[in-house]
């Protein structure tokens, strides 16, 4: 009995089911929950393939980070009409095209390998974090040997590509992250011109102008400001 395949099928079934559920549901928060399950199962597939670090990072970044971001987005903006999402036909079309393109890419990448990639062995990482780190930093790994290349994905011919230096992309990633941080800061710009802003900021400014002793804001807004100030 090949239990490896059993576990693969279990995880794959969970992944596909929750992915389909995430697509079909019209409820944003439930969609986010299905997404968590889906991404968690994909992390399980990574574990199964021996890519522990990638699997854990999948959990950490996507489940712990990105979906939280979605959740925040929903919680901060959602009123009832936004929670129920109806997808229009043109959106369906666009999504289909995107998904088909991505699917074709993945299929092509999968079919390049003649046989399934074997996990390296019991409890042994396919690509250890240390290797990953040296690869990021462009340390030349003298044409990674076939012993490890069969685990990192591919046959003997592809082994040479492991020695490629990723130093520039590595640093570019940090520049990219820097750009996002600056963008976030630009979005924040908290209360520079409170008088000209609308919404709650304006209410704050009004409260400030009306002087101490008065509380013009309704109770719920007071709770809101207690929640974030």
């Amino acid at each position: 009995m090949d239990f490896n395949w059993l576990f693969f099928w279990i995880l794959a079934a969970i992944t596909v089911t929750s992915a389909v559920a995430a697509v079909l549901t019209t409820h944003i928060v439930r969609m986010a929950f299905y997404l968590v399950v889906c991404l968690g199962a994909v992390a399980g597939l990574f574990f199964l393939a021996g890519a522990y670090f990638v699997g854990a990072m999948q959990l950490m970044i996507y489940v712990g980070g990105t979906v939280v971001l979605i959740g925040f987005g929903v919680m901060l903006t959602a009123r009832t009409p936004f929670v129920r999402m109806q997808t229009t036909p043109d959106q369906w079309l666009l999504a289909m095209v995107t998904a088909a393109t991505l699917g074709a890419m993945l299929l092509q990448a999968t079919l390049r390998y003649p046989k399934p990639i074997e996990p390296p062995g019991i409890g042994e990482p396919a690509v250890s974090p240390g290797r990953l780190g040296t690869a990021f930093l462009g340390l030349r790994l003298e044409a990674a040997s076939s012993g490890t290349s069969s685990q990192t994905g591919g046959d003997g011919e592809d082994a040479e590509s492991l020695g490629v230096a990723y130093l520039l992309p590595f640093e570019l990633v940090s520049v990219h992250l820097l750009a996002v941080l600056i963008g976030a800061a630009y979005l924040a710009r908290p209360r520079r011109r409170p008088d000209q802003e609308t919404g709650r900021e304006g209410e704050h400014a009004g409260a400030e102008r009306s002087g101490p002793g008065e509380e013009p804001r309704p109770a719920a807004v007071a709770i809101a400001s207690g929640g974030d100030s």
Partner: protein
Amino acid sequence: MIVLCVTALIKIFIIIGALMTAAAYLVLVERWVAAWVQDRLGPNRAGIPLTKIRLWGLGQPIADGLKFIFKEEFVPGHVDKILFTLAPIATLAAAVLIYAVFPFGSLQWMAGGEPIPLGLVSGFSAGLVFIFAVNGVAVYGIILGGWASNNKYSLFGALRGAAQLIAYEIPLSLAILTLVLAAGSLRVEDVVAQQAESGVWNVFLHPLAFVVFFVAATAEAGRLPFDLPETEQELVGGYHTEYSGMRLMMYLVSEFLHMITASFLIVILFFGGWHLWGLTGAEEAATWPIALLRVAVLLVKVLAVVFFFMLIRWSWPRFRFDQLMALAWQVMVPWGLTQLVFLALWLEFVEEDPWSRGWASAWPLAAANAALLAAVWLLTAWVAQPYYDNRPRRLALPTKATVASQRAITAIPDASQAN
């Protein structure tokens, strides 16, 4: 394979059972500690049921559990019913799942045999990252529960809770990164082994990382100075305001488990895990008595840290939300970065393996890090002098002038108006 599954199931059974019992009885201990701190008696009545034997209140957890079971399992009419049920399950599962990678040492069944690791998944090559990944899932339980409740208190509790948990995950990871840099591995066992082999615990080597980690772990556990997600006085019950019965119990238990997890992590990463000088030895594998001794040492250490957490709970007032965020982003993250860069520089330019010969070679790094902690602490205290204006700040961006004026206002509190 069958053997693997059966062993795993036995271990899972032990872990879940032990954790549930531990959580129940530590709640009792917490109430005792609270009573002791506040100079009163605490729970001392419930003993063996249907008799008059009191047993110092040891029956209290059983009574609490029965009470939870026989409460109404009530789902309010306005909630999202599916998510309302899934959220506590996800929270509980995430809280317990972390224990999969905790090392309890390993056991040499017989001489010359393979050492049997005493954890569920040992040698997990990305164990440290796994811990934080699962920790991240716990955030989702809070968001889900708070949102599904469809209640203002729950929503604010969930927002605050999620913001707090994700904010403190960064310093937590930075402190861990320091240890990863020291151990050169992501395996939890390696961090313990390094401390056991050199005999120098990480708390002495990296005190700054320890402070950052301790504060961040307390915040992640949502313990009192950081219990913003469920501030009883402001938000009723926070994200679990609408919960009752077993679902509420699952939330409360997972909260308590988070504290135990934090204690485990602190002990494993900074206090040498199962290692104790001159008592447990330092090798990876051990014979029966030594292995049991190690488990005992680990648990005693964990209980000590738990006790400390309980003392903190009754000693400190709660942070305000802006103070909480400022502490995370403006104090803990820079501290963590400082520690990380300092250690990297030290390893690169001063000594590559400072702990290779125990204290004999490790003391310069320990001394330098202690000095670094003192310097960073004093610098922070000097730069960020506290001002005690309790009002929500509605002014424009605080330029130096506004901060100064606020300080001036605070310096003479309402004296002019009183006159």
